[in-house]
């Protein structure tokens, strides 16, 4: 009881801070300096139609690299944490109720479509809403579907790891290329900006976003696979 009261008390204090923020908040009517710059210069500078994507991939590319790294790191650590809990060969396999026919058929039908859609989302990240993360998550959801269908299914860890690793490496490499060939680390203008609004435009953004998509997909997959392969503690 005391702990609840204390929690309420402390959160009331925190709430005061939030209330202060809330009450002191006056919505902008104009874009601020930074946002205005993006609105006015993104198209010319970077050639990306989706300003958010431009910000994510280029202006704040370092954040995104970090973001990708977070996923990579999480995947690695989850693998590390769960490494010991993998099913050991020789112990009796789990027995699970069979998944339904509906799920089987549905997944067979849907998985290619989902993958295709995911790829579409990240390839067009610089033009339309969406991008590498979203696309990657979609790709990974196909993996989830497969796992739901057959929980005992085993995936090639090496394959996933390779994709993950290579896409990451390329991402960093492109970043460094920006340093060498263009204005700085992760500058997308190492490639021609192309026609504004077309698929092959905005310099390296689509490539980077694709790499991010692949990487995110691979990482989520790897996490899912790892979690799925983990045995219940004996």
């Amino acid at each position, binding site marked *: 009881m005391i702990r609840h009261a204390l929690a309420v008390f402390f959160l009331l204090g925190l709430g005061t801070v939030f209330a202060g923020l809330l009450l002191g908040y006056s919505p902008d009517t104009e874009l601020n300096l*930074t946002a205005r710059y993006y609105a006015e210069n993104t198209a010319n500078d970077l050639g990306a139609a989706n300003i958010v994507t431009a910000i994510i991939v280029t202006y704040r590319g370092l954040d995104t690299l970090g*973001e990708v790294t*977070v996923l990579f790191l999480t995947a690695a*650590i989850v693998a590390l944490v769960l490494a010991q809990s993998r099913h050991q060969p020789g112990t009796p396999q789990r027995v699970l109720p069979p998944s339904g026919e509906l799920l089987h058929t549905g997944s067979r039908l849907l998985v290619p479509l989902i993958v295709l859609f995911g790829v579409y989302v990240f390839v067009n990240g610089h033009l339309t809403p969406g991008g590498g993360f979203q696309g990657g998550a979609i790709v990974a959801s196909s993996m989830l579907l497969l796992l739901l269908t057959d929980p005992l299914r085993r995936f090639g860890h090496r394959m996933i790891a390779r994709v993950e690793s290579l896409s990451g490496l390329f991402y960093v490499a492109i970043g460094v290329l920006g340093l060498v060939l263009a204005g700085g680390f992760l500058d997308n203008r190492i490639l021609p900006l192309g026609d504004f609004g077309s698929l092959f435009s905005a310099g390296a953004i689509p490539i980077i976003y694709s790499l991010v998509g692949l990487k995110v997909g691979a990482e989520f997959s790897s996490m899912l696979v790892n979690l799925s392969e983990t045995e219940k503690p004996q």
Partner: protein
Amino acid sequence: MILVSMAAGFLLILMGLYGALTNRNILRMIVAFTIASTGVNLVLVSVGYLAGRTAPILDAAVPVADAAERIIDPVPQALVLTAIVIGLGITALMLAYAFKLYETKRTLDISKFTELKG
């Protein structure tokens, strides 16, 4: 209008924190934190919203020339994406930890993991 969503975000944060501070079950705590994270994300996007404007994607509806007058602030949107991903990463990590913790003690009660103290 925007204050409402922001207030909702703050409320979610406080609710999440309350849950995290009062539930002893680790899984419940993790869920509570995701609620709080959602609240944060909600607050984040609320801040960038400008009344009566549209998404920051340049297309036919939003020509480059008067983009500055037509779009909302793209920065919070970019930030929230990052925040979401990071939140996701941490959640995954906590889940993995939760699994391991359960494995060692066969319990998910946070107050049972107090070998280290003082």
